[in-house]
């Protein structure tokens, strides 16, 4: 399969030079591309799995899979979305094999709250750390959409491409994720006040 990747280097068309070299089987190109995406991809996997060792292993598996599939990569497709979708599929396989927290777990219903603006009340607290904690308490499917939108700056279309779901699903998922985050923040603030 790796050799298949080297068979048709021209199919990548306008893709970056490193990608074309990667397709020819150049190990230096592999290093260059991994270096370019390493922190973002690792962060994404860490947010999904919440486990550094698992994220580390899935990161490596992702690049092995990239090398296996690069021969079939459609140059018209965004490489970044393709890369993240490979990582996501591997994460799903992992969740299936270790069903502690499946990625596509049932989304909890949105709780509406009449509490005031929680963020205003949080000025004295370590907001970022608390937000990160709240985020890690969300279902994986919600952590994913938040991290792709806010940390990776992906557009809805790109997120839909990564997650393999329609645009409308991404939109409603993002809405639910943000509502869940806000609820979690408000509960924490209320907890601290008590």
């Amino acid at each position: 399969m790796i050799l298949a990747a080297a068979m048709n280097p021209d199919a990548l068309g306008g893709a970056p030079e490193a990608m074309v070299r990667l397709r020819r089987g150049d190990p230096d190109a592999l290093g260059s591309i991994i270096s370019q995406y390493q922190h973002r991809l690792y962060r994404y996997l860490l947010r999904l799995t919440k486990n550094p060792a698992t994220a580390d292993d899935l990161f490596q598996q992702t690049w092995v899979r990239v090398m296996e599939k690069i021969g079939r990569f459609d140059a018209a497709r965004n490489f970044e979305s393709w890369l993240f979708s490979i990582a996501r599929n591997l994460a799903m396989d992992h969740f299936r094999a270790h069903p502690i927290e499946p990625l596509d777990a049932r989304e909890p219903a949105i709780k509406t709250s009449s509490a005031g603006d929680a963020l205003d009340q949080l000025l004295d607290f370590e907001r970022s750390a608390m937000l990160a904690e709240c985020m890690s308490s969300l279902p994986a499917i919600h952590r994913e959409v938040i991290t792709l939108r806010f940390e990776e700056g992906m557009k809805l279309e790109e997120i839909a491409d990564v997650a393999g779901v329609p645009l409308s699903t991404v939109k409603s998922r993002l809405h639910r994720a943000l509502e869940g985050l806000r609820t979690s923040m408000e509960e924490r603030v209320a907890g601290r006040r008590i």
Partner: protein
Amino acid sequence: MSEHESVRGLLALAAAGVLDPDEQVRVDRHVRDCEECRRKVETWQAYARELHHLPQPQAPARLMERTRDRVLQERGGITEHRWEDLILAALALFAWTVTLSGWLVLRIFTGGALLIMGTNFLRLATWSLVSTGLMWISAAAAALVLGRKRRQWRRI
């Protein structure tokens, strides 16, 4: 559903910057006149700002090198398997060639009959059966020897 309720459901997505232009116009128009929604959208914007500045975990040191090594190792494994497949195919072809040519040569020298215990071994079906049996026995023996060697190498 009133416009107020309808727009309220869009505020979080407005702060996330993912609304369609039409939806964004609706939200902008509504929050100009609605104090409650304006405050809510400000809250959501504060969340969005915070989410953009979450603590950013970095990939561990040497992860890149370890990944590169693993990829190259897997690539080496695949190449090795390809070679093994090619060698196996070549050996199978060789074995059948030897079998067929041996059968032809023996037929020429013996006049077409090689009787052992009343069975003519130069009948094509018998010759094929015996040859195949011998090949399977040889292959099984080779697999046993190679497997034992591989286990020894792994222990080393």
